């Protein structure tokens, strides 16, 4: 063989290796180590990983999260989103944070193999993490400025994604102070960039829109984060729903129109989603006890006139959440007491996938195995006792924690239901005042 593989070819070969092999091969030599750890190579590997698993070829990977009552823990697995899903070839993911949240995290988003977790579903608020499960690295975000301590009663909404222009992961956080008649606008906005490692106050123009607390969801499409928001121009003015957009590269807010049928819907019933790379909105009949929903799709991105109602979905026994879409046209959703279901919107039939978890704990997102956070992250592994001493300590800890589990955490399903129904009641009263 030629004694020397030019760097160009070597890079192209290495970019096809799985992250675990790349981690190992950093030991080959100093130049391999530098190469594999470089931002250029890390982006190249992600690009290659995305290219090699195109959505329409049925090789797209998805990550599924749910809370298992039996294991008292979140459970993550990676699957190929094709006809055989879920087969037994799924990849189980080691979950390193069982003790740091009451039950489970909100998954804000999944991008290039990095999950953004926020601990705000069961009362706590200020803990946010970035986590790359395949290389077992995490970044714990610092506490932002806008918290209960500085703002008083407030709520926040997050957006997460990758800024392609600056090769950086970013979060945008909008914190709304609670006023007498709802949340005050504009919110206080802060932006976190992984390269800087801190939150900074956003100095650009902030739209006077509000996002529904607790039930919000965000979707990332070509470097822009989207939320369903509503505009409240004052007591006398009409309240209207719209799509609020934040461009992670240029750091500019924007707005897009919703179909007129959704403009005056109670915004608590609306969630942003993504269907085959297009922006979509799920319109639930109601929260907590929902039985059906409609899915609207914006066919030409950015064209507010191109919305169309794509699906009506009705699930016997009750609908949980719409989670994702599959190449074969099925919708992934949760149905009450049935776990994850693949629902055919043409026949109206659902197939139970045998993946169970508590009702509101499911998440489905796109996934690629990447080296992201290799440089910035700290190790995130399941706790393994390092010697006999710590083992005996953790054993006694374990015993007591089993005993307090019920007291300390309460029952996960009761807590889910209580959070959902009380938030739903509170927000309905709050929003009906302005919407009806």
């Amino acid at each position: 063989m030629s004694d020397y593989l030019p760097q160009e070819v070597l890079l192209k070969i290495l970019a096809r290796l799985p992250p675990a092999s790349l981690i190992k091969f950093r030991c080959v030599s100093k130049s391999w180590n530098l190469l594999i750890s470089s931002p250029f190579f890390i982006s190249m590997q992600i690009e290659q990983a995305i290219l090699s698993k195109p959505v329409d070829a049925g090789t797209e990977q998805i990550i599924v999260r749910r809370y298992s009552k039996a294991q008292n823990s979140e459970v993550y697995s990676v699957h190929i989103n094709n006809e055989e899903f879920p087969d037994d070839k799924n990849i189980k993911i080691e979950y390193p944070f069982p003790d740091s949240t009451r039950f489970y995290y909100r998954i804000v988003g999944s991008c290039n193999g990095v999950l953004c977790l926020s601990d705000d579903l069961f009362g706590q608020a200020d803990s946010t993490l970035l986590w790359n499960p395949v290389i077992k690295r995490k970044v714990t975000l610092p506490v932002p400025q806008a918290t209960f301590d500085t703002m008083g009663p407030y709520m926040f909404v997050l957006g997460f994604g990758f800024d392609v222009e600056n090769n950086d992961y970013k979060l945008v956080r909008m914190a709304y102070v609670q006023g007498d008649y709802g949340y005050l606008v504009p919110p206080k906005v802060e932006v976190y960039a992984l390269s800087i490692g801190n939150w900074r106050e956003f100095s650009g123009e902030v739209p006077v829109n509000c996002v529904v607390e607790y039930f919000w969801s965000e979707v990332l499409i070509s470097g822009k984060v989207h939320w369903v928001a509503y505009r409240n121009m004052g007591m006398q003015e009409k309240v209207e729903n719209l799509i609020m957009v934040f461009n992670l590269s240029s750091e500019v807010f924007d707005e897009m129109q919703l179909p007129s049928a959704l403009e005056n819907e109670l915004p608590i019933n609306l969630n942003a989603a993504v269907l085959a790379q297009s922006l979509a909105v799920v319109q639930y009949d109601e929260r907590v006890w929902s039985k059906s929903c409609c899915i609207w799709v914006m066919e030409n991105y950015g064209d507010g006139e191109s919305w169309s109602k794509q699906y009506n979905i009705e699930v016997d026994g009750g609908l949980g959440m719409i989670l994702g879409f599959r190449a074969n046209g099925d919708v992934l959703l949760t149905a009450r007491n049935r776990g994850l279901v693949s629902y055919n919107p043409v026949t109206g039939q659902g197939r139970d996938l045998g993946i169970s978890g508590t009702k509101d704990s499911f998440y489905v997102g796109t996934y690629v195995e990447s080296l992201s956070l290799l440089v910035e992250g700290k190790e995130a592994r399941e706790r393994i006792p390092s010697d006999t001493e710590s083992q005996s300590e953790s054993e006694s800890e374990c015993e007591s924690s089993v005993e307090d589990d019920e007291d300390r955490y309460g029952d996960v399903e009761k807590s889910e239901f209580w959070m959902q129904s009380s938030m739903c009641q509170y927000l309905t009263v709050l929003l009906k005042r302005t919407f009806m």
Partner: protein
Amino acid sequence: MAPKNKNPNGENVVPEVQQKKTQALILKSSDGEEFSISKSAAGLSVAIKNMMEDDCAGGVIPLPLVDGGTLARVITYLNKHAEDGASDEDKRKFDEEFLSGMEVDVLCDVALAGNYLDIRGLFHDVCQRIVNGMKNKSVEWVRKTFRIESDFTAEEEEQIKKEYAWAWEGVDSDAD
């Protein structure tokens, strides 16, 4: 019957497409071997296609970065992929067999040629083959195969290993 193969004077002519196909071209390897290849097969290489369009070669295209052995393999691949009757399934089977007998050294040479000649399908398949062979191998195997000498001290290497101990789980033995 079909008059399309006759010129206005009623003489038989070879259709233009076919003409292009049957026309041959000479590829010259770094060690001076010459290979004849049809233009249609050669055209599957983006680099050769560009050279043909520029017509800078006068029928002989020198490839100073590809040795004769490698070029022979590449031409076998191109001929199969330019074959008229070959179905996608045929080609897939051929690719599988074509690559399966190659040692890593040879695969690397074919990868180099595939990259240089810009034959995307071939390059991708060869890279994937190399990667599948190396992903579960040890660091020492990679050093030996790619002829790389470690410039790490034992301590430095240990440090990286310690940080990511889990990545060393499930390493294959170095035997191929």
